[in-house]
């Protein structure tokens, strides 16, 4: 089967048993619901995109849910989370609601960024979700700065920074991990290695394909994990979080995962085979989680069905809410540029626009 060289398919039909036991009944039940929430939301977003209610770039998280859900299960309130442009999943788990996320996708004023950010820029600052960033690798220094600020203020908060494997060839990654290790910052860097940076396979872009080994170059702990396994993801990230919180030491984690959809909504994904996609769908992270719950007797089929339905209903409700929400007011185009504009206006020194 045409599986990428670095990616090994998960070997059993459920999450790692030891990790699942450590994760425990309540967290596993919660994880299933969170992953379902993301999955159904993203499926709904795809339909809204197809029907023209969402425009621009739209990168879906379908297939990678276990990474955000497992990793964020290891955090506490006060911790900081930041990611790249494939951000709907992280947003939904960390402070954004289906309603304000869908509204953001539709460019509505009820969106979590009041219609100013869109798909790539979701934010819930008060809950510690700091975006949603569109320049590959450029948010890794921001995460490093958050770790610096936590340490500077003597807080035990940690920062989780997610990015794709495409970011690992950017200078920002190398500069940041060096600083984090040099200054002993409480930051956990998680590369979501889905093997394709847009259409470029990992082995066509990186001389080293065991990405976690790059940590050695920064005298940092580097860990590989199966990112389709939500319990395993939690377990590894939890250890890294503990290291960051108690010893102020950073960790670099490679989570091997797979996106089931294209890079964005406009990607026909001709660079990989259907066979490969189908192979990974056999180890769908939600299916693995479901099987763990059934095997352990932690959830009934009825409960699982109900949770899935609730996720679909939340997505539908979000769509209705977003469609019915108003767009931002035109007279507010100059909001959020400066905290203190000092008399600046957006039509200063240009011909003022009029729209009826």
């Amino acid at each position, binding site marked *: 089967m045409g599986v990428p060289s670095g990616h090994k398919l998960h070997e059993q039909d459920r999450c790692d048993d030891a990790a699942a036991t450590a994760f425990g009944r309540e967290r596993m039940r919660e994880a299933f619901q969170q992953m379902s929430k993301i999955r159904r939301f993203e499926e709904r977003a795809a339909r809204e995109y197809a029907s023209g209610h969402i425009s621009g770039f739209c990168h879906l998280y379908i297939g990678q849910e276990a990474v955000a859900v497992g990793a964020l299960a290891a955090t506490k309130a006060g911790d900081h989370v930041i990611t790249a442009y494939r951000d709907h999943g992280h947003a939904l788990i960390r402070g954004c609601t289906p309603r304000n996320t869908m509204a953001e996708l539709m460019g509505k004023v009820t969106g979590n960024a009041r219609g*100013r950010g869109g798909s790539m820029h979701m934010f819930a600052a008060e809950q510690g979700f700091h975006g949603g960033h569109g320049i590959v690798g450029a948010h890794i*220094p921001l995460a490093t*700065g*958050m770790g610096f600020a936590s340490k*500077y203020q003597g807080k035990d908060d940690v920062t989780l920074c997610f990015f794709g494997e495409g970011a690992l060839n950017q*200078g920002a990654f190398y*500069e940041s991990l060096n600083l984090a290790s040099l200054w002993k910052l409480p930051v956990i860097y998680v590369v979501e290695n889905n093997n394709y940076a847009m259409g470029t396979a990992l082995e066509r872009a990186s001389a080293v394909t065991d990405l976690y080994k790059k940590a050695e170059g920064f005298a940092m702990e580097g860990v590989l994990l199966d990112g389709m396994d939500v319990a395993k993801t939690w377990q590894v990230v939890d250890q890294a979080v503990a290291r960051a919180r108690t010893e102020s030491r950073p960790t670099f984690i490679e989570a091997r995962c797979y996106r089931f959809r294209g890079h964005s909504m406009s990607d026909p994904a001709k660079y990989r085979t259907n066979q490969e996609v189908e192979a990974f769908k056999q180890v769908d992270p939600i299916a693995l989680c479901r099987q763990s719950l059934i095997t352990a007797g932690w959830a009934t089929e009825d409960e699982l069905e109900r949770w899935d339905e609730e996720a679909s209903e939340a997505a539908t409700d979000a769509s209705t809410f977003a469609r019915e929400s108003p767009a931002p007011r035109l007279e507010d185009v100059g909001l*959020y540029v*400066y905290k203190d504009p*000092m008399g600046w206006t957006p039509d200063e020194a240009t011909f003022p626009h009029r729209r009826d």
Partner: protein
Amino acid sequence: MPVITMREALNQALDEEMARDPKVFLMGEEVGEYQGAYKVSQGLLQKFGAQRVVDTPITELSFAGVGVGAAMIGLRPVIEMMTFNFCILALDQIFNGAAKLRLMSGGQYHIPIVFRGPNGPAHMLSAQHSTATENWFCNVPGLKVVSPSTPADAKGLLKAAIRDDDPVIFLESELMYANTGEVPDPAAGDFVIPLGKADVKRVGKDVTILCWSKAVFHALGAAAELAKDGIEAEVVDLRTLRPLDVETIYRSVRKTHRVVTVEEGSPYAGIGAELAYRIQHDLFDELDAPVVRVTALDVPMPYAENLENLVLPTPRDVAAAARAVLYRS
């Protein structure tokens, strides 16, 4: 009033603001143990410790981003660029990060950060160390841009920049760090100059010269020359380039009806172009002559002294431009 150097004035501003607010820290290359590449941060490491005067590796992109990330969650970083030529490596963090995060998040953040250091040409540093970058930053909504010319302005404006809740680009000049000037005694009270206010450095009635930073001295030199011929030039030091103090500029133009702009950057899409646009549009009937700008010549800076001298504007060029708008050449 005590007379101190520009670097001492900047040092006082940093010192006072760091003492006033524990959220303020200084980060950059050689700011600590080396005491600053241009000695602006002299003594601050000893006073505030390595936690607040942070030496970085040579990594402009990431320490600029570290500053922005720290500002996102409540600190007030001052990021020193050894020169703004090196800041070019960090522009993504400034343009796409600092300037845009407030808008992209629908107002969930403000980014109280200052990027400061020497900007523009100095003396025989060749092409890669002589770039005047102010027009680049001024093109980015979300940023404020400041460029002082005197020790007093430098101190008062840097203190205001550090206290401002928006990202501020604070452009100094290598050749001006040793310049001296009167600065109010710190014991006499808090000395802050608000951003967004120009300052008339010389009063005149015949021609307005708009300038900032080192070009203020070209303008004052030109004004002294012109005075010998009975021409009284008004020298308006913009001090803050974004947002622009159009009120003070326009007041002067309404008085003199003739305008020269001076800058050390390239002409194409320079600040002079912006000033000329605004003045012709808003004060068309006030003008007795087209606005003339004096800029660097449109080449990367050559090393040879005679070529550099040719490329950069001089007081003589400014005086000639003033005579041109007065039709007295």
